[in-house]
């Protein structure tokens, strides 16, 4: 109406743009919340039961990945070593690390297994074969797991509160880019790489 426009000219510039300013403030606030504040809230974070230094094992001890993460005889991937495997070297403390001592006291002596929280567990409907990628596809561990083997500490285990899927520590290496704070590993991570290698897979290749 003409009333509004004539009245508008009499107001101060600040008052005239108040609406716009409030809209922008709200928009920026909402975006900041959505992009910065909210994503971390989506994840619960749990520390691993005990810290582990990959770098010492790979470097000073001169071990390889497969020494602790081997294939079983039937071709399946054994995943994490058992306490018994650790005890092959760590029956008694080798160094003077308090962490090592704690590990031997808490787990080796008591014969308990460490309840590691696994970063890279696949969802139930996905099939993943290490043999296919490592033995047949000749991929190195680092190509998917990144520099995990060279780290001195192991990061906390983060789980998406809704989907229950964890954030893969090596996800950035797998995806070939930094993962957004909202991201876990997705099917696209697999399919992008398969496509890059010229391998178009039927659904059943990975889904079960």
């Amino acid at each position, binding site marked *: 109406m003409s009333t509004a426009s004539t009245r508008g000219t009499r107001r101060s510039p600040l008052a005239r743009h108040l609406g716009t300013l409030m809209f922008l403030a709200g928009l920026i606030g909402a975006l900041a919340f959505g992009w910065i504040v909210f994503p971390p809230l989506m994840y619960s974070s749990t520390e691993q039961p005990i810290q582990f230094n990959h770098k010492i094992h790979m470097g000073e001890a001169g071990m390889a990945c497969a020494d602790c993460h081997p294939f079983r005889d039937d*071709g399946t991937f054994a995943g994490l070593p058992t306490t018994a495997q650790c005890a092959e070297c760590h029956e008694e403390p080798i160094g003077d690390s308090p962490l090592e001592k704690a590990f031997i006291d808490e787990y080796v002596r008591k014969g308990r297994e460490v309840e590691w929280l696994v970063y890279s567990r696949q969802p139930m409907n996905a099939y993943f074969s290490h043999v296919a990628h490592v033995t047949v596809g000749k991929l190195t561990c680092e190509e998917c797991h990144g520099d995990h083997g060279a780290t001195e500490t192991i990061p906390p285990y983060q789980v998406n509160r809704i989907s229950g899927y964890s954030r893969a520590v090596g996800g950035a290496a797998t995806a070939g880019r930094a993962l957004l704070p909202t991201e876990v590993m997705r099917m696209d991570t697999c399919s992008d790489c398969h496509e890059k290698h010229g391998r178009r897979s039927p659904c059943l290749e990975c889904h079960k």
Partner: protein
Amino acid sequence: MSGPKETPQGASRYGMVIDLDRCNGCGACMVACAVENNVAPAPQRANDRNGITLLRVFPMRNGRDYPESRQVFVPMTCQQCDAPPCESVCPQHAVEFDWTTGIVAQIPVRCLGCRYCMVACPYHARAFNWWDPEWPEGMESTLNPDISTRSRGVAEKCNFCHHRRQVARERAAHEGREVREDEYQPACVEACPVGAIVFGDLNDPDSAVAKVYEAPDAFAFLDKLGTKPKIRYRSRQEWVHAMARQGVPEKEVTRG
């Protein structure tokens, strides 16, 4: 995705031949199938029309009176058609013809639950999860880890125990060799006490199934529909062949 779905060199084409003259209708295949594929026990209120049976043994009678009365048992499951009517109707590619194995793949996590595929399938070989799958306390630990469970509201069907192929391939790859025929056999084949079911790669002329696939007494159900099923049946009884060629409805069954 770029690149055509080419059938690669040396691709498999899995098929099955079921000998109706041998089948005695014991149902071991049905049990083995359900156990292998993590089919949840049916709830109390389920009936034979809304439970999950990926493989079902039907009696087929010639409809004549004694002494001409004859009957065979027909284990009916997904016929793994080469021209699957269920694939083209799925609105979102939850059904895919696997061009490397010839298996018609059903991907439950992509499924919307519209059931159009079930309407399209003339073999009634698909089942829908009308209920939330529930296992009695403690029974979850007996689930097969090689295959996922399916949620309520999605369709499912026989995938020729494809997960067994994955396990076999993994072992073979680890040992640096090809998969042997006996390493990949669906659960129903293993369970059949009379050896009525033969399964294998039709592209491999030396496989057991290829040798009987073209046998003169082998036939496919509803082959005039143009679905090109990869499961064939055998029988030396002429009436069985005649029935398979022409369907005649029986009496009406009401439910509701």
